[in-house]
């Protein structure tokens, strides 16, 4: 209690107008240690902030992103829903960076397709497919992740499967869906049964 009182007292003294004026005068004095110290702190903080900003621009290799996406189902099987959500969150970060920073066509395609089926909010609003994803499978995925292995999750999975097949299938004679869609269905098939 006494320590808190002393700390508060020192803080109120430090932040008093008189003290602030004194500090400013001391800082403005050319060559003062105070000035140098402040500049060093500002430059260091600014440098680290710049490093953090640069790191957000660097996208991981797209093959790594693809592999992380492909391994989500086995991550769930081995580590359960918590591990899955951690890895999914990291994948989201990678996909987001790829969309922002990796302008290679292949990388953009892969990241966009993964976003469509897992992170549609990362897609730009002009994308015609975004709303479809937000309505037709994102809510169903959220229910499945909240209640993995439950009967209602299985029903939601069947609905999602139908939505995606109706949405994508280009060939009635030989029905098929894209690899990304197929992987997504595999992930949530596993999650809705175990």
């Amino acid at each position, binding site marked *: 209690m006494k320590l808190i009182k002393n700390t508060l007292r020192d803080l109120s003294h430090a932040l008093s107008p008189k003290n602030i004026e004194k500090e400013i005068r001391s800082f403005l004095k050319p060559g003062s240690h105070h000035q140098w110290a402040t500049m060093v702190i500002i430059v260091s903080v600014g440098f680290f902030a710049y490093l953090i900003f640069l790191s957000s621009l660097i996208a991981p290799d797209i093959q790594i992103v693809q592999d992380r996406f492909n391994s989500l189902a086995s991550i769930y099987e081995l580590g359960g829903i918590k591990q899955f959500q951690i890895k999914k969150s990291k994948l989201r970060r990678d996909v987001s960076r790829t969309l922002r920073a990796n302008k290679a066509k292949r990388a953009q395609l892969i990241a966009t397709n993964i976003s469509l089926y897992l992170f549609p909010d990362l897609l730009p609003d002009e994308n*015609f497919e975004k709303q479809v994803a937000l309505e037709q499978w994102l809510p169903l995925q959220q229910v499945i992740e909240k209640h993995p292995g439950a009967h209602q999750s299985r029903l939601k999975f069947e609905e999602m499967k139908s939505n995606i097949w109706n949405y994508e299938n*280009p060939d009635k004679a030989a029905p098929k869906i894209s690899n990304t869609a197929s992987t997504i269905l595999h992930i949530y098939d596993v999650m809705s049964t175990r």
Partner: protein
Amino acid sequence: MDGSAFNKRRPIILSWFLFLGVPFALTYFIWDWFASFPDIQPRFFTQSYPASQKMRDELVYIRQTNRLHPENERRIIHASLETAKLLKVPPSLLWCLLFQESRLNHLLGLDGSRSSYGLGQFTHFGFYEINYQMHRYDHAHNEALVKLLGKDVRPILPHIDDPKSPSSYFSIPTAVVATGLYLRNRYLHLTRILEERDYKYDPQILWLYAAMAYNKGTRGILSFWNEQQNQGGRSRVKDLVLNKKIFFNVATQPRIYEAGFARIWSFQKSKHYSKELAIHLKNISSCALTPQKEIPQ
């Protein structure tokens, strides 16, 4: 104005009445006559289908080789007209879609050798949508089903053991109604997406896109629009959904869809699906539309 003043002015008032009233009445009657006169412009969707000579010849051939029984043909025509009327689908488009998908063979796939069934070549996921998801597109669809088939016959499935059952997709009226509903769902979905983005569109062009989505999936169409938007901005997409001339100049070229499909499929598959989609559109257009030269631009 007293009576004597009115009597003096009566001829003038009468003259003004005739001078203004007669032209007005004449104009109104002429307008009314034109408004109720049968259309003097050819319709976009033809009332006489198939429109193309090639398809008419093919239809004659199918009849002559006993692949289409007259009674079945009559039932298909009747069901497609009733369905089109209630669902506000262009009748020629619905009939031509059935012709394109199955050559009007309502038992196609009965032997279980195919992944798709009947008149509209439905897959299992198509049945799921009709059976459980109609409310997503239009709440009135449930009522339409009852009005057209007498009762709610769902779940509709490809009942191989009882093809004549009203719940079987091999039953002609059921197949036609289900196909009409599925086609309309594609139309409603595409128009809703455009409206959410404040795009104006020509409903007749959107019906053609709906037929394309029926064949190649809605994703193919949206990927096409995304790609066109990337290349030419909003105005490019606006032209493709609003301007018939631009739509037909562009949309019938196979290569135009490749970039959109390449977002989803491999290079080879993209080329293949692009070509198929362009052919599908050409066939549907030549069957369901008044020949282009007659349509005013």
